[in-house]
């Protein structure tokens, strides 16, 4: 009996040794999990002309290690100035519980911000005019569930005005179309008025809510011998960014030899004299760095809002056609000159 007991004891100790080795081996060998999270990002492009922003965004995300189809999926939606469509898409993103919403420009971003208040779904914006709006708490700590790449409207508008009168010093009256869709527009317009007043230039302000409004204004002007304006300064109003509006403006400007300060990049190649604005690819890349931080767990409220650089592009052909002598200093500052 005792002998049996001893044998059992020896066997137990043998098993203990084996078990110890197994635990040791498992501890060393098994920590890596094959599971990797696949992120889902909803992208809402509110204006088709800004779509190249998405390319910049995806390219930078790829650089940061987010490979489309492997660990990240993009749901890209373009609504092209359709407030209802924007709202619908944002609701869809919320319903599908995407990890992140990237929405631009201002109106789409605002819709995303307003509709995600309850869900706390992170939102990144671009081309948002946050100067005088209750859009974020501050540039350093935006608060809430939102951060992004800003678009300082007031600064941009005044600088476009300065370039316009530098290109054509004979200008006395400038047509400025605007709408009231964004609370910051009146403030930007006020700054513009002050700058114009200093230069003794008259701003011809026209409230536009549709391409038809623009058309009606121009038709009215053509009824007079003097159309009442010497140049056109386009603001980032959604209506003014549509192709339909641009077609009306372009025809009118060509007909009356008016220099036009473009609103979007594409317009510089289509008859505008110059464009001062962001590089869409660059903006997309900046937004991607923010997205990376959010996906890695940083709350959007703690990520500072980024400011993109404005780049000057000049259509010298159009300027010469109009008989304008673009200063060499401006040409030196331009990142692109169409000759």
């Amino acid at each position, binding site marked *: 009996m005792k002998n049996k007991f001893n044998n059992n004891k020896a066997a137990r100790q043998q098993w203990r040794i084996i078990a110890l*080795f197994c635990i040791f081996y498992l501890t*060393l060998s098994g920590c890596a999990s094959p599971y990797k999270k696949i992120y889902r990002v909803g992208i809402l492009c509110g204006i088709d002309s800004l779509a190249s922003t998405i390319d910049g965004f995806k390219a930078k995300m790829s650089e940061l290690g987010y490979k489309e189809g492997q660990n990240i999926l993009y749901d890209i939606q373009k609504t092209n100035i359709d407030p209802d469509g924007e709202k619908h898409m944002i609701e869809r993103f919320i319903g599908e519980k995407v990890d992140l919403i990237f929405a631009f420009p201002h109106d789409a971003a605002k819709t995303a911000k307003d509709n995600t208040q309850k869900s706390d779904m992170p939102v990144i914006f671009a081309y948002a005019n946050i100067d005088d709006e209750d859009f974020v708490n501050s540039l*350093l700590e935006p608060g809430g569930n939102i951060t992004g790449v800003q678009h300082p409207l007031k600064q941009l508008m005044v600088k476009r005005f300065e370039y316009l009168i530098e290109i054509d010093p004979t200008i006395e009256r400038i047509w400025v179309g605007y709408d009231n869709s964004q609370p910051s527009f009146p403030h930007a317009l006020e700054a513009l008025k002050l700058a114009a007043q200093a230069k003794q230039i008259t701003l011809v302000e026209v409230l536009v809510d549709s391409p038809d409004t623009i058309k009606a204004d121009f038709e009215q002007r053509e009824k007079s011998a003097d159309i009442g304006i010497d140049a056109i300064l386009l603001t980032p109003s959604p209506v003014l960014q549509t192709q339909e509006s641009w077609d009306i403006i372009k025809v009118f400007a060509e007909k009356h030899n008016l220099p036009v300060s473009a609103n979007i990049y594409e317009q510089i190649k289509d008859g505008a004299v110059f464009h001062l604005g962001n590089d869409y690819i660059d903006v997309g890349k900046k937004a991607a760095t923010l997205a990376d*931080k959010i996906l890695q767990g940083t709350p959007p409220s703690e990520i*500072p809002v*980024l400011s993109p650089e404005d780049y000057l592009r000049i259509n010298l052909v159009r300027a010469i056609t109009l008989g304008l002598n673009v200063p060499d200093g*401006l040409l030196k*500052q331009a990142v692109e000159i169409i000759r």
Partner: protein
Amino acid sequence: MDKHARQSKDALTLYATLVWVFVGLSVLALLFSGTLQLLSNIQSQRLVISDYQYLVAQQTAQSVSNFIQEKFNSMDTAIWLTDLALKPAEEQKYVLESLLGLQPAFRQLILLDTRNKVLAQASRKSYEAPDRLLKMLPEEALLQIQKGNRFISQVYIDPDTYEPLIIMATPFWDVFHQYKGVILAETNLKFMWDLVENLRVGEKGYAYVIDRTGNLIAYKDAALVLKGKNKRYIKTIDDFTKAGSSAPPQEPSTYMGIADILVVGNYVPLGTPDWAVVIEIPWQEAYEKIMWNAARGIIIIIVVAVLAALLASLLSRRLAASLINLENTATRIAGGEMDLQVVVSGPKEVINLAEAFNSMTAQLREMLQNLETKVAERTQQLQNALNFQKEILSASTTGIAVYDDTGQCILANEALGRLVNATNEQLLAQNYHHIDSWKQSGLYQIALDARDSLVETKKEIFIKTTFGKEAWFNCRFTTFISDGHPHLLLTVEDISEHKRVEQEILNLNQKLQAQADHLSTANKELEAFSYSVSHDLRAPLRAINGYAHIIQEDYLAFLDEEGRHLFDVIRENAQRMSKLIDDLLAFSRLQRTEMLPETVEMTELANSVYQELTTPEERSHIDFRVDGLPPIKGDPILMRQVWHNLISNAIKFSAKVLRPVISIGSQTNDSEIIYFVRDNGAGFDMEYASKLFGVFQRLHSEKEFEGTGVGLAIV
């Protein structure tokens, strides 16, 4: 289970011990060599990392320096190629705008003349007054510039974009080397971000730029730069801020890096501007190869340990087999099979051990037999002693009981059973915590006190026992320790008869005291009566005597012989009666006199009284002898009265003999001194000796010896 048994159970078998020793030694050796190798590898890797980081940091520092230098160069080139000092304002503006176009990092350029007046301005932002920029320049900076030096300001943050900016200034001269002015360039450092961001430092390493105060200037995470928080809490940055400009290169350190991961980091100062480039490589990446080697080493250790275990198992089985056989036989002998002999084969040492074991078991058997015989003898002796003790207990007339620490009775003798009318079984079934009669009589509390105080306690107590007996018992509790536990010993004696006699004596004493009190009261009354009578009789007697005296003095002539004789008789009797009353008053006063005791020299006192009572003539024919009398404690006045009465009595009653002899002496017994006065006078019949000291008792007629019969009563 005792300690030895537990140790035996927990002890490893020989087999397991050998396995563990083999495995342990193998692992220890491998760990030792592996650790040495690991430390060597770490040291080598540190050197590699140090060199690599320094190289990358220098390249980055060069790039950053180039970035700044390029800006200065642009401004210098514009100055010299365009002969800026001599150009009109329009052309100066053009030059500035060209510089803006050439260097995207320039946000604003201002041209100042020798008096710091703005000659030209170009800006990417909408028109802004140059005052802001000028206000940010310290006066000494302008002095420095006028002396021909370049200037770089501290980093400051743009309030609109929160981007880091600096002011760069470079002076310009005319052909005669006359100072003509300065170009100020507000430079946006975010254009340096790409430079730093695109830098590859290993797989996941990174670089960033800090200024001397510890502020972040360029880093791949722009958000962190924009927040503008000081980073001096990071070790390397803190080192830079504390180090001088010419500090030697540092060794790489391990710390929590700017990305909140453990990193190996180092920095290289730029010199001009006074910034530094910090290079951080994740610790995991830096020591990845070493970690892999360490993991490989651990796997090798495991494999070797397994092999060592298997080898040890085989060897130990062979070595341990004969010992296990020996152990099994020993186990069986321990189980009672004392006649077993060990038969083993194997190493010589084990065979010797087996023989020694067999010899030992033989001796054990013999010792066991002796031991059993001794145990039987001792058991009988113990039994006898136990029986003797039981008989003592049985024979004792004192009731004895023993209670254990729970209060249970564990021993009671027959005497106790007789005393309380109980059988021995009934007594042994008792627990004193539950005996009502103990609690009612107070015996329970006495038992508890004795148990708690460990002091012997006894008490005479009247009790009605549980078994119906009522009696007086003398109970004595004694506490003693047995087998580590306190026990209570109770001895009981029936003292009912003793109590009864004691009560009777008490009753008699009470009666006697009552009678004594009664007698004392009667005596006091009698004393009062005697005093009152004596005192009251004196007055009429004095009147009778006085009137009789007057009649004798004044009317003697009118009386015949018979009348005079009768008056003489009246006077004599009145005088006798007066003397009698005086003595009675003295006796009565003596009874009420308070005693004031002190030492009295009796010899002196007796001689003094004798001298006082006798004349020299009387003393000449009286033979008066006084032996040495011992002194006494008493009232000297009263003692003088005693001697006076006794000696005067002796003189009086020996007066009729020819040669009176009066001797005074004493006898000393155990507790008293007897003084005596002896004379050779008339004497008295001893039949009446008891009356000798009574009042008015006379043993002789008055005609023989005058007196009132009160003298000895006073004694």
